[in-house]
């Protein structure tokens, strides 16, 4: 005889789960009691939101399914933002929540919330386990759904009596995955692939627009090989950064609102847009009518609903990016040079590089540039959301997939720091740096307690400008510099870190940037660096919301900085 809690822990072990991020409470006591003897590691966070972000960070860095655990009611509700974050970026996470006993369901019992109802729009699927005999099957299904097709979060809600009820341990057909309605397509359609090949071969000005789908299908190698054979430049979305090394000659960096000028010019000038694992998000396309206006579009995506959702597509290919790119490599053996186009793209790249004022001031871009130089190809970089995120995307030279962890679709401030804890468990031997603003860091600052307790050696880099910087930038550019509720008071972050027993420094001089970063890297445990950066620095280039991506604002400085 086995209890539901035992079946759950064994089910997690069957799935290869090594670490869970969680927070205990009344109805999950039976599960925690089982965890006590288990060799699955449990990390006690300080807020459930951190548990799911950590599970998400673990999943992004490892490619495996991340797992978190929370109690019913408030615990479960605190997972919602994290589920939405994972859902928007298609990250495989299984969230386990406790629930009041089945007898009390629907009674407004203490700490009851209808978490399956609440999370329906932000999960790929969710379960309320009403019979312990379904539990084994549901765990298997949840991991299968989370980690296949277009990946995503799955929630399992487990009432307390389901955890405590004992049943004979069985593993028959009843416990096997039973999903009649779920059959993801992996192989591309032969006819569509043929059509794509014709377009690819006849194109004069082709470009690859690659996104998070390339990372999640582990297709980077095939992508770069294909681009090299076809002599096609690659621009990536925020989510796709790292799928081609930053210093690769075909790399154009990020496109879109804060993309490089040359990527946006190349998109606008192209005659063929080869889109892979992307969703034509508004932050990428700007005005849809002027996005790649002269290009035919090929779109590979594992989710048929993404194809043609925002922009009509000439050749849709539903399937897995890795499989389809490998297939294309086989079917197009000859190299396909476009010397004129390559020269034009190279010209844009040379004439419009990313740039910032290197005037001896402590500018945030300088911190990223130095960090990139110090780390080289090592390390995993996790960002918060806002200006810090965009500067990291622009100035850190990513060399491989899964080196860059960031909340793209939902843009969740407070994501980065807790996610970095999960990243560190996925990559124990890599230095893990969080790039934060003083605004987003304060959204989950309580996790200093967690990294101190477990000595998780995450390095926190705060680009402290005492502003909610990205909103302030919009206010400066579009609201006549009326800084409505975006200014933050000075906080001595180093002192806060020290109160938790974490070593920390405050840096006010550009000359100290390199040394401070090096000390953080060399330090064995967690470390916090509070960089007091130029307060009103802006992220450029910038495409105003809804404008054509070729119409960028470049390098305008704030009024008081202008000569």
């Amino acid at each position, binding site marked *: 005889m086995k209890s539901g809690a035992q079946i759950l822990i064994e089910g997690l072990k069957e799935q290869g789960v090594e670490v869970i991020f969680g927070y205990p409470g009344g109805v999950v006591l039976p599960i925690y009691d089982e965890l006590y003897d288990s060799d699955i590691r449990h990390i006690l966070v300080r807020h459930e939101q951190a548990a799911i972000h950590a599970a998400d960070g673990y999943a992004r860095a490892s490619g495996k399914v991340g797992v978190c655990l929370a109690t019913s009611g408030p615990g479960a509700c605190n997972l919602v933002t994290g589920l939405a974050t994972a859902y928007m970026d298609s990250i495989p996470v299984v969230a386990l929540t406790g629930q009041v006993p089945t007898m009390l369901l629907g009674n407004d019992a203490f700490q009851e919330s209808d978490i399956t*109802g609440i999370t329906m*729009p932000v999960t790929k699927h969710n379960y309320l386990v009403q019979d312990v005999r379904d539990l084994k099957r549901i765990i298997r299904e949840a991991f299968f759904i989370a980690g296949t097709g277009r990946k995503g979060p799955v929630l399992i809600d487990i009432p307390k009596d389901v955890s405590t009820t004992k049943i004979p341990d069985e593993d028959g057909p009843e416990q096997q995955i039973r999903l009649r309605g779920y059959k993801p397509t992996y192989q591309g359609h032969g006819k569509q692939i043929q059509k794509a090949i014709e377009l690819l071969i006849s194109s004069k000005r082709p470009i690859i627009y690659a996104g998070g789908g390339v990372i999640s299908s582990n297709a980077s190698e095939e992508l770069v090989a294909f681009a090299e054979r076809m002599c096609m430049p690659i621009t990536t979305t925020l989510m796709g950064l790292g799928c081609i090394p930053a210093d690769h000659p075909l790399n154009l960096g990020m496109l879109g609102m804060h993309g490089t000028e040359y990527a946006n010019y190349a998109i606008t000038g192209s005659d063929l847009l080869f889109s892979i694992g992307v969703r034509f998000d508004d932050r990428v396309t700007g005005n849809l009518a002027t996005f790649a206006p002269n290009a035919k579009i090929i779109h590979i995506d594992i989710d048929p609903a993404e194809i*043609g*959702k925002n922009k009509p597509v000439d050749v849709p290919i539903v399937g897995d990016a890795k499989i389809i790119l490998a297939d294309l490599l086989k079917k197009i053996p000859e190299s396909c040079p476009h010397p004129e186009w390559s020269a034009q793209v190279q010209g844009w790249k040379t004439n419009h590089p990313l740039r910032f004022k290197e005037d001896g001031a402590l500018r945030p871009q300088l911190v990223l540039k130095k960090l990139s130089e110090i780390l080289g190809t090592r390390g995993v970089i996790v960002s918060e959301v806002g200006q810090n995120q965009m500067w990291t995307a622009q100035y850190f030279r990513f060399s491989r997939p899964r080196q860059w962890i960031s909340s793209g679709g939902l843009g969740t401030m407070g994501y980065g720091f807790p996610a970095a804890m999960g990243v560190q468990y996925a990559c124990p031997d890599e230095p893990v740096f969080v790039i934060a603003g003083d605004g987003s860091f304060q959204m989950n600052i309580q996790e200093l307690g967690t990294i101190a307790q477990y000595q998780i050696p995450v390095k926190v880099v705060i680009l402290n400008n005492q502003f909610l910087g990205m909103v302030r930038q919009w206010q400066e550019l579009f609201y006549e510099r009326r800084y409505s509720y975006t200014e933050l008071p000075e906080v001595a972050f180093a002192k806060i870190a020290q109160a938790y027993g974490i070593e920390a420094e405050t840096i006010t001089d550009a000359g100290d940037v390199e040394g401070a970063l090096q000390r953080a890297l060399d330090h064995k445990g967690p470390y916090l660096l509070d960089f007091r950066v130029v307060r009103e620095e802006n992220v450029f280039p910038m495409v105003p919301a809804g404008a054509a991506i070729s119409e960028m604002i470049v390098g305008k400085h704030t009024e008081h900085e202008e000569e």
Partner: protein
Amino acid sequence: MNRHIFSVLVEDSPGVLSRVTGLFSRRGFNIESLAVGTCEQPQTSRITIVVSGNDVQIEQVKKQLNKLIEVIKVLDITEAEHVERELALIKVKADPGDARSEVLQVAGIFRAKIIDVGSDSLMIEITGDSGKIAAIEDLLKPYGVLEMVRTGKIALQRGTATVCTGR
């Protein structure tokens, strides 16, 4: 804007209807009518949904429905040869005398059934397409419709084609 009828096979599990309707409201699709019931396959329900939209919206409806784990099959049967029906129960005021015999006549012409007779009312059961139901409703109105209820539209393709085999 065109009207489309989707025939959707789903797992017969708690919550499946709320997943489907939640999807419609979340994505801004408008449901005109909806009917749910068990069908010929065990542990399976069939939902018939009528929805209006342009071609791109309708394509999205279909794709988003297909993404739901508990949706087994989706078919837009509007383009195929199909039969559609609705059922309505209409309670009409019918005092003994002329009114009552006139109402009975109308019911007869529409091949509707009288399923309840009261001292001064009749309940009529009518099946047909939306037009037929609207027509009898109009004709009965002058006598005083006390209450009316109608099902959502249900529809099947003609011939041997099924949702599982496609068109």
